[in-house]
């Protein structure tokens, strides 16, 4: 059961979106308050910089840490605080584990007395865009360029997984650091595949061949969370990204003309249309909610299901013993893909910030340097069952099968981890893509029609002067 009713222990597309919306909706009030405070900046505590103290922490300055206490708890943060006081024994740390981050901290931002580090997560979090707009966040560039806590020879930013810095960058300034990492792929039961002698396909041709075998064995090859067609978008768009590479992703996110008619997208749409045409998707999937489809998959009624890395935690009470789910990278569509076969779609979340009006900015940055250390990240992975956004943090650990496979996939992908931004930038376009994909895999739209209708929606959006545009 869900241990805490307040928190989603895993970020999902939908919950993130919903939280973002909730936060966005409260924007007017917040921005009024945030900008309403006085502008004079109180001096932040600082000490002398040195090789062991690269950020210039004042040793006896107090540090206040506010952590969102959701599904992951806050013990991991307390452990990092222990490491901090080990290094700076004279410092006292005020720790607060709370659920309503926004409610508790909004007045403090207005009064210019924010804490030194904030884990701004959960449904009641502060709106990041408003904080950024009101210049309430410290730049993290000094931290990014500082040596890492574990190895002075390696810069802090080089310990992060791909995309983490970009995820926290606003108009060129790094202001937010995400602590957890989510990867998307295709899931299956390892023991089931082993017992049947099936191997996870590396290419789409292999996938189609394997699906024929699976179907012959009396199991539906695929199911998906039909009520929310966006789940099927993830493998489809991943496949397209692998074929077309970073250029394809950029063209899509930047709303370029005919971006959706790129060969990579066309081929990916054809691939999934083929899956549907050959009857490789479990009958009835199209009407199932995520919980229903995932339960059917756990019961062995279907072999593959697309999902993000939260799936294992979500299915904890449903998956039978020894189900041992693992995630595989989306198979390559062509032999000449721009990304390697191991490339995956991934993104970071759980946002840490250091307020610009904090009393101990250096301490806040130092705390993040410690929190993102290997030791701290490992203990987080073990207790939370989620991948931290730190490269190699969980190497050598014995993880559950799902989490272990996610780690392996992330490691195998290396630098080739990618993410689309249009989903968060342009929600109406995301809706158009979801609808089109739903039609495609229910055989009511051809791949060409699929591309046409999404392109039309993208073009309309590009022309719409009332929508704020982003580029990457």
């Amino acid at each position, binding site marked *: *059961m*869900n241990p805490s009713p307040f928190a989603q222990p895993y970020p999902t597309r939908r919950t993130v979106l919903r939280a973002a919306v909730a936060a966005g909706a409260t924007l007017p009030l917040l921005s009024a308050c945030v900008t309403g405070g006085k502008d004079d900046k109180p001096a932040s505590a600082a000490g002398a910089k040195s090789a062991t103290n690269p950020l210039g922490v004042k040793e006896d300055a107090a540090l206040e840490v506010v952590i969102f206490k959701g599904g992951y708890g806050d013990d991991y943060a307390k452990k990092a605080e222990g490491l901090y006081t080990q290094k700076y024994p004279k410092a006292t740390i005020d720790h607060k584990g709370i659920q309503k981050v926004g409610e508790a901290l909004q007045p403090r931002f207005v009064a210019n007395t924010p804490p030194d580090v904030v884990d701004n997560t959960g449904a009641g979090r502060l709106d990041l865009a408003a904080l950024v707009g009101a210049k309430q966040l410290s730049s993290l560039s000094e931290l990014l360029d500082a040596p890492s806590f574990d190895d002075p020879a390696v810069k802090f930013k080089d310990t992060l997984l791909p995309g983490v810095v970009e995820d926290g960058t606003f108009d060129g300034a790094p202001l937010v650091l995400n602590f957890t990492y989510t990867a998307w792929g295709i899931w299956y039961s390892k023991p089931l595949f082993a017992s049947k002698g099936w191997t996870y396909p590396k290419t789409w041709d292999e996938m189609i061949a394997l699906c024929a075998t699976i179907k012959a064995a009396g199991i539906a090859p695929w199911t998906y969370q039909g009520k929310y067609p966006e789940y099927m978008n993830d493998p489809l768009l991943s496949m397209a990204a692998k074929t077309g590479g970073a250029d394809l992703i950029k063209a899509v996110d930047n709303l370029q003309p005919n971006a959706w008619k790129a060969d990579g997208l066309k081929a990916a749409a054809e691939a999934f249309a083929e899956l549907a045409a050959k009857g490789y998707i479990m009958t009835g999937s199209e009407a199932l909610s995520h919980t229903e489809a*995932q339960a059917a998959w756990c019961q062995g009624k279907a072999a593959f299901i697309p999902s993000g890395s939260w799936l294992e935690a979500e*299915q*904890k009470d449903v998956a039978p013993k020894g189900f041992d789910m693992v995630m595989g990278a989306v198979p390559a569509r062509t032999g000449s893909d721009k990304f390697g076969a191991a490339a995956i779609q991934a993104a970071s979340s759980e946002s840490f910030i250091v307020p610009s009006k904090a009393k101990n900015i250096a301490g806040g940055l130092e705390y993040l340097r410690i929190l993102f250390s290997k030791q701290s990240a490992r203990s987080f992975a073990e207790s939370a069952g989620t991948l931290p956004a730190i490269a190699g943090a969980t190497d050598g650990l014995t993880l559950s099968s799902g989490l272990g496979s996610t780690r392996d996939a992330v490691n195998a992908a290396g630098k080739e981890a990618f993410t689309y931004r249009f989903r968060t930038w342009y929600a109406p376009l995301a809706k158009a893509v979801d609808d089109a994909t739903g039609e495609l895999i229910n055989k009511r739209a051809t791949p060409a029609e699929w591309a046409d209708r999404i392109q039309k929606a993208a073009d309309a959006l590009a022309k719409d002067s009332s929508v704020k545009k982003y580029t990457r």
Partner: protein
Amino acid sequence: MKRVPIHLAMLAWGVVTALPLLWAIVSSFKTDNDILNDPWSLPTEPRWGNWSRAWSQANIGRYFFNSLIVVGGGLLLTMLLGSMVAYALARYEFRGNRLIYYVFVAAMFFPVFLALVPLFFVVEQLGLLGTYQGLILVYAAYAVPFTVFFLHAFFKTLPSEVAEAAFLDGCSHGTVFFRVMLPMARPGLVAVGIFNFLGLWNQYLLPLVLNPDPDRYVLAQGLAALSVSQGYRSDWSGLFAGLTIAMLPVLIAYVVFQRHIRAGMTAGAVK
């Protein structure tokens, strides 16, 4: 027998109505596996664990409590304000009387959706977003027009002799209203009260928009969140138990007071 087809038709609709409800109640005693594999089976043994899980871990208990506070508060306020306005407009002649009446009554015919967006910001700017007080005030504001409409007609039909006698005895206007007229209007108050209670208890759109804090979810909101969101991990039996917990009190209260409730609600609709 001429009446057999009639009975069959009546029975058929009875089954169509009752079966899904019965099915939910039966399913609330089954295991997830039974529910998934055999929708028509009966529970092998009653699993009260589903109920306690729904009540505590899925927070149905909390949602229930929230609903009680918000609907109780909203109903009290609605009845108080609505009856005062209806009485003042029905029994006193003054300039602007008709205008005020129409200002209230016209709102009955406006779709709530029209007001939704500005209402959200009004409530937010008053600092009432996600609070009990905010929901209570909004509930009352949107229930008062119908209450006025209904009770206005009711107060008009009451005889005026008793009130006149009370005035001659030196009673104030307030005393006459609370001590004399309100008790006389009891049947009307009960009817419109029941109507309002069901309306507010089942309200979904207003809390969905104005009550974003999961701690303060009302029952309808909580159930919707349970069935739609990720948070509730594939616990069908718990969800059915939650549904049953939400349904049963209202259904039982109805069976006990059924004549009053039906009379009240249908009277409300035709008036």
